[in-house]
């Protein structure tokens, strides 16, 4: 019975990969991967969208990782056990459940309009970063809590300060768990459409983004655009499948790299 559940899950997973691959593979070519779109999206490639998604994801992690890690360190290592701190913890967990389109609107109001970053990589990265924050914080917190108290004590008993202990002993030990959080967030962030809808994405840009204040094309938004806008729905649909395949592949690739790193880290001292 339980085994059947696994089979059903695998069938879903397998069919997703099968459908996306068979339909997307037709349009994938060297040109598709290395050029910008031409002729109202029906020809050429999607390189700007690939690059855009790459920048947005990188930007989001660049912003969310240090901030999230710092929060997790404070919550785990420094904060006193109090009602307020518990409230903060619960709020962070709830933040993870906020619908992504709400983050999108927030990003529009705060980053695009209030800080006047405009519709740009910066606004999009920050918005995606906020989306990734709770994921990174809770994964890091879990990883930090899992570090045995005994090795903290060992470090302190050797005359290390609290910060030295955290920096040299606790963080390296927790690193595999923290990386898991980063992997999860990369997967989530790279595929999100709603948060970048109003903050970063454009259906078509001329050339490549020039600075962090440029609008960008991004794969998830491009897929959405191809399916809902434009004048050649039939050709666009095929390209949308191609984009999906690339997006899937990108996320797998990034996760793969992170998993390898994590295994290496873990393997080094077990």
């Amino acid at each position, binding site marked *: 019975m339980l085994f059947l559940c696994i089979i059903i899950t695998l069938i879903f997973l397998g069919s997703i990969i099968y459908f996306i691959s068979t339909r997307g593979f037709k349009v994938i070519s060297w040109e598709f991967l290395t050029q910008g779109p031409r002729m109202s999206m029906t020809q050429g490639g999607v390189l700007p969208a690939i690059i855009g998604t790459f920048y947005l994801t990188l930007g989001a992690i660049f912003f969310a990782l240090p901030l999230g890690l710092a929060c997790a360190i404070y919550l785990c290592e420094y904060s006193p056990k109090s009602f307020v701190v518990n409230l903060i913890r619960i709020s962070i967990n709830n933040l993870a459940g906020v619908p992504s389109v709400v983050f999108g609107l927030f990003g529009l109001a705060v980053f695009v309009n209030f800080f006047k970053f405009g519709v740009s990589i910066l606004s999009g990265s920050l918005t995606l970063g906020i989306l990734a924050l709770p994921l990174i914080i809770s994964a890091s917190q879990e990883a930090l809590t899992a570090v045995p108290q005994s090795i903290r004590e060992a470090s302190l*008993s050797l005359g290390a300060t609290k910060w030295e202990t955290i920096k040299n002993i606790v963080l390296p030990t927790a690193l595999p768990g923290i990386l898991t959080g980063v992997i999860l967030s990369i997967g989530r962030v790279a595929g999100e459409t709603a948060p970048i809808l109003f903050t970063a994405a454009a259906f078509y840009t001329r050339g490549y983004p020039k600075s962090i204040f440029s609008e960008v094309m991004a794969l998830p938004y491009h897929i959405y655009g191809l399916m809902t806008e434009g004048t050649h729905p039939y050709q666009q649909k095929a390209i949308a499948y191609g984009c999906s395949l690339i997006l899937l592949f990108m996320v797998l690739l990034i996760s793969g790299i992170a998993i390898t790193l994590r295994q290496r880290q873990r393997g080094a*001292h077990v």
Partner: protein
Amino acid sequence: MYSKIKIKADNVNFFYGKVQALKNITIDMLEKQVTAIIGPSGCGKSTFIRLLNRMDELIPNSSMTGKICLSGVDIFNCLCDPVDIRKRVGMVFQKPNPFPKSIFDNISYGLKVNGIKDKSFIEEKVEDALKKAALWQEVKDRIHESALKLSGGQQQRLCIARCLAVQSEVILFDEPCASLDPISTAKIEELILELKKDYTIVIVTHNMQQAARVSDYTAFFLLGELIEFGKTQDIFTKPNDPKTEAYITGRFG
């Protein structure tokens, strides 16, 4: 011949919240001697030993009164940094707790946090500490491998070496053999007798034979009180207090 008092506890009381874990402990521990602390579980032995390098204050809601002096200086004086105290008073814990790093890094860690950067000096110190802890012969060819690959007994000796590398004056052993087999235990005990030449040692143990084998002085704790303290020989052959006698003859605990 060794009459200098290294650690002096004066009327020490310790509380976890409202629960009193130590009651009026007054005890003098002599330099370069082994003092064993025995007593049943929950009698405050570990609490007491952890006060000596100020590890107890990591526990929230704990408080203490009284005075503990190390070489005549009050270590709970507000001018004393607990970090400095811990550099002088090393500790070996109940379960071996090596860092998930290489053998070399485990030992050099204490030197590095003490601001030593000279590589050849560190290498020399690491070798020296491993030799003193009687581990060098076993690990010299794999010093850059993970410490977690060592056996439990080797890990515990590594933890001792880690202490020795930072040049402590006092080493506290909190039931160091609790999770070890008899052969590893024998090695640790041998080591303690060897280390006595250079260090003042305080050892908490559940094992009364162990206390008799390694210590010069023995303190018997019961329910947070110090019942009896004296030369190990006297405690085990002619205890003054009937409670001590009951405990060492195995009638309770």
